[in-house]
């Protein structure tokens, strides 16, 4: 019965979304607070209904109710409970339900919390959010319903995908979807502003917290997915420029551009058209991602719930939603005032440069992802666009951006002065150059580009701190005053400093790990050892160690440096009889912020007929920073979100004054 209740709640949520749209539009047209308020109530109720539907689906998975088609196809009674819960969003239908949960959730927060928004703008935004909700809920109910029952239920579920039985992957989709769909509120506010014909500093201030929250969630979601690939796929790679990764990366890049351009609109009233364009683009890229990942038009190692028929429907939703929003933009944008003027050297120019580079980077990723399709459609020739392309195009763009980042916060609005900015950045420049030269001289093999990357990373980290140092007058005023000023720094400034420094931390880890990772592979009999750089990996033995739903061979490996055991590693190979799959459980030993990464390969026959095992060892220096960097960036976003400026109802006070 709970499943039928869930199906009902899902349909109820669809009806409530329709009602939300209708009431909000009526409320806006008649300027009726009652009707608009009822529209907001429908948004809250819609979220409630969807939460119940989602709970019903999770219940079906936890209790392994195989009479539900989705549960039968995507779960198994032998799965641990956590992964049965996570399986609820592991399929096409379930993931769409999670998408809708996030969508109605953000809609409910917009309806319930956005009290400082002007009444008309809010009613229109809630209506737009209602339209998006209606479209996606209709898709879920009609084409992708997770509550369909089977006439002839099987005794056991079909999927016990071992790769999905992983804690990082269990929490990765919720973060990613919160990020994707958080952009829908930004989109709704953008459309509402175009409809109302009002895009000013106040609007940018309302948009910013939503963009910040969505971008921070997306950052965490992407980092988790990358970390999962790093330790689960078994060869230490963490980014493959895979279409599915690109699909999540594009909204992130656009979101980052939007955060910066919204600052310009908020502080100076400039670039309103461009900011609203990005607000529309961010969610359009989210929808493009939802389509690409599920349609099967692109091949990917992460290929997800592929279904071409429903892919066409998703493409239709994308084209209709984004198309009408951009048509509205094309109609209304020319009437927008360009806003304040600024000099070539100014905070505005720096932020525009940031936007140019981030947009060019987005275009690069978009082309790199879709160009093979375009070429094939035009000339029938198949080509591949892989990592080497992105290294030659995307990476230089980002390198230029990294050079410019520390300048932005140091330049004044309207007309900046380069000389003091340079002076403040002298320590960063000196330390960066020293780091680069040190890498060039000390590290083997000698790598010029990676050394340059290292210099850039140090420049970014120290340069980001330079602005904070300047604000607290570090070393220029007594320590007590610096501390007082430190406490008085606005959270927004802290957020920016952290996010920029986090980018530097990421660049440091990414460059170092990519350039100076070491690997070795050898077949070992028990007692033999393998050298990886300064490490000696001694294979002690390999034992059968079966788990609840798998059979495993687990190796005991002692990792020694200078004859001393530093860690004991237990990499394993698992065989899951239910699906007939073999997986490799990597063993990772963290040494400071570096990883010793060991993989147990297949068993072979040695020279004397005794069994030997293929053991691969990787030394991934500074690998932790690759994932810590995005963590620091997301933290910066969240701290920025708690800034007084964004919490205080600026608009409400303004309206009260008027």
């Amino acid at each position: 019965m709970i499943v039928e209740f869930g199906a009902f709640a899902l349909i109820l949520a669809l009806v409530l979304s329709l009602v939300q749209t209708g009431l909000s539009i009526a409320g806006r047209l008649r300027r009726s607070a009652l009707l608009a308020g009822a529209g907001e109530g429908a948004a809250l109720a819609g979220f409630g209904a969807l939460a119940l539907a989602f709970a019903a689906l999770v219940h079906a998975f936890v209790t392994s109710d195989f009479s539900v088609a989705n549960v039968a196809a995507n779960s198994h009674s032998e799965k641990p409970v956590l992964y049965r819960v996570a399986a609820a969003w592991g399929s096409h239908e379930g993931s769409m339900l999670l998408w809708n949960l996030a969508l109605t959730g953000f809609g409910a927060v917009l309806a319930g919390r956005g009290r400082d928004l002007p009444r008309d703008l809010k009613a229109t935004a809630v209506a737009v959010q209602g339209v998006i909700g209606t479209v996606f809920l209709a898709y879920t109910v009609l084409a992708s319903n997770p509550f369909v029952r089977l006439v002839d239920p099987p005794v056991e579920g079909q999927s016990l995908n071992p790769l999905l039985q992983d804690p990082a992957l269990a929490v990765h989709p919720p973060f990613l979807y919160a990020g994707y769909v958080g952009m829908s509120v930004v989109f709704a506010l953008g459309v509402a502003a175009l409809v109302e014909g009002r895009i000013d500093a106040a609007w940018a201030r309302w948009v910013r917290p939503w963009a910040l929250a969505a971008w921070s969630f997306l950052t965490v979601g992407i980092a988790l997915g990358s970390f999962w690939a790093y330790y689960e796929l078994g060869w230490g790679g963490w980014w493959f420029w895979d279409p599915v990764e690109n699909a999540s990366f594009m909204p992130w890049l656009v979101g980052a551009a939007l955060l910066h351009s919204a600052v310009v609109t908020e502080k100076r009233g400039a670039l309103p058209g461009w900011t609203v364009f990005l607000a529309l683009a961010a969610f359009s890229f989210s929808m493009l991602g939802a389509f690409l990942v599920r349609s099967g038009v692109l091949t990917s190692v992460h290929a997800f719930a592929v279904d071409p028929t429903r892919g066409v429907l998703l493409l239709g939703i994308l084209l209709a939603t984004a198309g009408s929003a951009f048509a509205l933009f094309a109609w209304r944008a020319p009437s927008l005032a360009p806003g304040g003027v600024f000099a070539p050297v100014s905070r505005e120019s720096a932020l525009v440069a940031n936007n140019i580079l981030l947009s060019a980077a987005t275009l690069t990723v978009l082309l790199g992802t879709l160009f093979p399709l375009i070429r094939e459609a035009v000339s029938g020739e198949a080509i591949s666009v892989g990592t080497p392309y992105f290294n030659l195009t995307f990476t230089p763009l980002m390198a230029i951006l990294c050079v410019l980042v520390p300048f932005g916060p140091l330049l004044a609005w309207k007309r900046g002065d380069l000389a003091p900015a340079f002076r403040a950045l002298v320590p960063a420049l000196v330390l960066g150059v020293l780091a680069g030269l040190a890498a060039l001289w000390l590290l083997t093999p000698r790598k010029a580009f990676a050394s340059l990357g290292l210099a850039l990373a140090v420049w970014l980290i120290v340069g980001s701190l330079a602005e904070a140092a300047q604000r607290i007058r570090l070393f220029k005023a007594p320590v007590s005053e610096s501390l007082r000023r430190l406490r008085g720094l606005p959270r927004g400034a802290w957020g920016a400093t952290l996010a920029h420094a986090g980018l530097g931390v990421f660049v440091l880890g990414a460059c170092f790990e990519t350039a100076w990772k070491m690997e070795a592979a050898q077949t070992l009999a028990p007692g033999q050892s393998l050298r990886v750089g300064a490490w000696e990996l001694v294979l002690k033995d390999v034992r059968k160690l079966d788990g609840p739903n798998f059979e495993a061979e687990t190796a005991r490996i002692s990792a020694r440096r200078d004859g001393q055991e530093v860690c004991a590693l237990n990499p394993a190979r698992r065989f899951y009889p239910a699906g007939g799959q073999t997986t490799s459980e990597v063993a990772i030993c963290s040494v400071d912020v570096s990883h010793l990464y060991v993989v147990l390969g297949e068993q072979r026959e040695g020279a004397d007929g005794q069994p030997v095992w293929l053991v691969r060892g990787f030394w991934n220096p500074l690998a932790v920073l690759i994932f810590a960097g995005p963590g620091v960036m997301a933290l910066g976003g969240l701290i920025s979100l708690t800034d007084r400026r964004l919490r205080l109802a600026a608009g409400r006070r303004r309206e009260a004054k008027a």
Partner: protein
Amino acid sequence: MRRTAFALAAALASALCLAAASDPAERLPDPAQEARARILFKEVRCMVCQNESIEDSEAELAVDLRRLVRERVAAGDDDVAVRRWLVERYGEFVMLRPAFSAANLVLWLAPLAAVLAGGLALAARVRSAGVAPEQLSAEESARLALLVRAGDGHDPALKSSPDDPKA
């Protein structure tokens, strides 16, 4: 309909991708040649895999391709010759770095074009702003002078501008 495509693809990926290229059974005796072959592997697509280079894949085809590339390298072919040989045999699809050709011109030049277009737009925006004061008409100048004298710079409307840090 079964929704196990993800499961299948992911499982395949896991089964096939175990840093295959470093297998000691495949290695070339000359370390310099081996190093060159390993760099080439990263540019070559494992065509039956989802989206991987032959460096990462344990699929049979990838093993074969690695053997062939190693043979070419051992025979003394330089990188360009190995790439040409691969493209002749398997088509452009096999290379993960698309050729810099007329058909791929958009792909290669779009990033640069985007930066140039953006830079020009910024330059135009900044220049038009710089010229603006010179275009002040005589009337406007007179009005401005009047305003400055009358308000003495203390226009209350300016106080609630978004620049105000306390706003």
